[in-house]
């Protein structure tokens, strides 16, 4: 059965060529997203989540960034062959993004109304006044009174700013929305409000979503699928059930074991030992092997994706070993 893919990326490679060496931020990443689905992209700092997101918008800063990609299709549109002018038409219209820090994501010298309207005006054939009217609608949609459209970002609190950013991103009903840690900078109660809003809006707009986060709790709450990233690659991907309950990759296991369990405060944390590898100097083979409790010599060889089921794959050569399983129990 052919999947209805809104995004199809094959072999995405992004390097940053800096003075201190070549940062291998993303290394041959493959990603498929089905229409209307929400996928969580989970990983620790420096895993390459933001880089991946930016390269989907073709916004990697060059220099120092160098982007190579085998295939990148957005709803069938070949993103790699577009001219800069055509890309501008796609950004904000078919694909849009919410950035991590709402405090800095808005231009301080324009009113929020203008910032939302600009997007509408750019992509839809409407007058600027009409665009502004629709901007006000958008504001109300995200729970901000419309009359505040003429206010400047500094007059809003963090949560409200993030709502404005969401309004900008959704203003033209994009097919794919990338949210890069949209709630990390917010307080729990506000985070809950924003997540709730995103959930509702996504339902309403039928937008596909890539939710970048390092919080597995958030993923559990609003995503259909999870992709776990480590050192520039997806090491495990599957439905929520697949990854949370039938965890396969040792790194995913380590992540779960590091999180304090709110229901069992006596449980000891078992952190992953060691540190993220230096992205300028990644280890051979599986980048996780120096930290991996199940490591053996084969881990130093190049890794391939291994399908566990239709929806679930893992990138770990340990499964070549007969009878290999990780310690975490399947639920």
């Amino acid at each position, binding site marked *: 059965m052919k999947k209805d893919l809104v995004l199809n990326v094959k072999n995405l490679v992004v390097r940053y060529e800096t003075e201190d060496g070549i940062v291998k931020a993303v290394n041959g990443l493959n990603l498929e997203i089905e229409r209307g689905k929400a996928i969580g992209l989970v990983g620790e700092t420096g895993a390459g989540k933001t880089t991946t997101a930016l390269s989907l918008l073709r916004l990697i800063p060059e220099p120092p960034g160098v982007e190579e990609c085998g295939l990148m299709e957005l709803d069938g549109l070949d993103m790699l062959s577009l001219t800069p002018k055509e890309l501008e038409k796609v950004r904000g219209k078919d694909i849009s993004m919410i950035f991590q820090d709402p405090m800095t994501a*808005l231009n301080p010298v324009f009113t929020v109304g203008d910032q939302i309207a600009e997007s509408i005006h750019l992509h839809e054939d409407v007058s600027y006044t009409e665009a502004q009217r629709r901007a006000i609608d958008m504001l109300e949609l995200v729970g901000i009174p419309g009359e505040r459209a003429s206010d400047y970002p500094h007059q809003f609190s963090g949560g409200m700013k993030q709502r404005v*950013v969401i309004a900008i991103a959704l203003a033209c009903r994009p097919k794919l929305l990338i949210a890069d840690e949209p709630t990390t900078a917010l307080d729990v109660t506000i985070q809950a409000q924003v997540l709730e809003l995103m959930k509702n809006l996504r339902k309403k707009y039928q937008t596909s979503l890539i939710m970048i986060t390092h919080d597995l709790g958030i993923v559990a709450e609003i995503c259909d699928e999870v992709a776990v990233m480590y050192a520039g690659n997806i090491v495990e991907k599957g439905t929520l059930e697949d990854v949370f309950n039938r965890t396969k990759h040792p790194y995913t296991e380590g992540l779960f074991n590091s999180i304090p369990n709110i229901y069992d405060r006596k449980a000891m944390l078992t952190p992953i030992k060691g540190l993220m590898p230096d992205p300028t100097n990644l280890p051979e083979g599986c980048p996780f092997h120096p930290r991996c409790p199940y490591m053996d010599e084969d881990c130093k060889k190049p890794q391939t994706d291994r399908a566990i089921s239709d929806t679930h794959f893992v990138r770990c050569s340990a499964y070549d070993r007969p009878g290999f399983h990780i310690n975490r129990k399947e639920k």
Partner: protein
Amino acid sequence: MIRYIIKRFLMMIPVLLAVSFVVYFLMDLAPGDIVGMMAPPDATEVEIEMMRKEMGLDGTLPERYFRYMKNLLKGDLGMSLSMKRPVIDIFFERFPATLKLAFGSIIVAMIISIPLGIAAATHHRSWLDGASMVTAMLGLSMPSFWLGLLLIILFSLKLGWLPSGGSDGFLSIILPAITLGAAQAGNLTRITRSSMLEVIRQDYLRTARAKGVSEKKVIYKHALKNALIPIITIFGSTLGNALGGAVAIETVFSWPGVGRLTVSAINSRDMTLATGCIIMFTIFFTLTMLLVDIAYAYVDPRIKAQYSK
């Protein structure tokens, strides 16, 4: 906002008193006085005392300063000792020329520096960046009066295109404005570049790009308005420097401005004129700074919010 402006005006008063104090005392410390210069060679002691009194220079320093202050507080800058006319009149006769020159130079500086700075920032680390920076540096490093002399030799002596001095007509302002503008252009280019570089890194530009705003608009609409904020601050002090720094250039180009007037007042120990001119300079400088602050609030709503509180 209005209250803020009024507050700023009130704050000027102590500053001006302090400036008058500093200048008046410095001038008094200077050896020689105007009476000695102006008295005819055969004047007797009595006549000299008479002159002193006539000029209001009798009494001890504190007495004199107190007298001066009393008038100053009434807004009276006194009479020029050497010209025997109200300082304020003399100042304003000459001030327009200086203002013209200052603005001329700033226009020159802006025309050069803002595009150059933006180009350098958007082509960070490229040859264009390097070339712009070296140009800016050259402008900053040339003694302006020397540049003025070189320009005179070239444009009025060798080529005969432009007048070498004077202040009538548009042509005569070109050389002095370029001379004075060169150094400012250097400074302004650097500020524009660094402020632009700072802004270019900001997240909100990424947001704008992600919205599909074209690169040109990102730079000239979203980035420039933010980058303007530090440029505007510098604009204030640039104008201030132009007002004061024009002294040497006014000499080179026989420009009838206040800078030269002040220097000659200091040299001839015309205390009231010198102090008065410097006070007026300070007032204008402070006013410019105030204007700058207002302009600031205009481009940066965050600041505006602060003022209105």
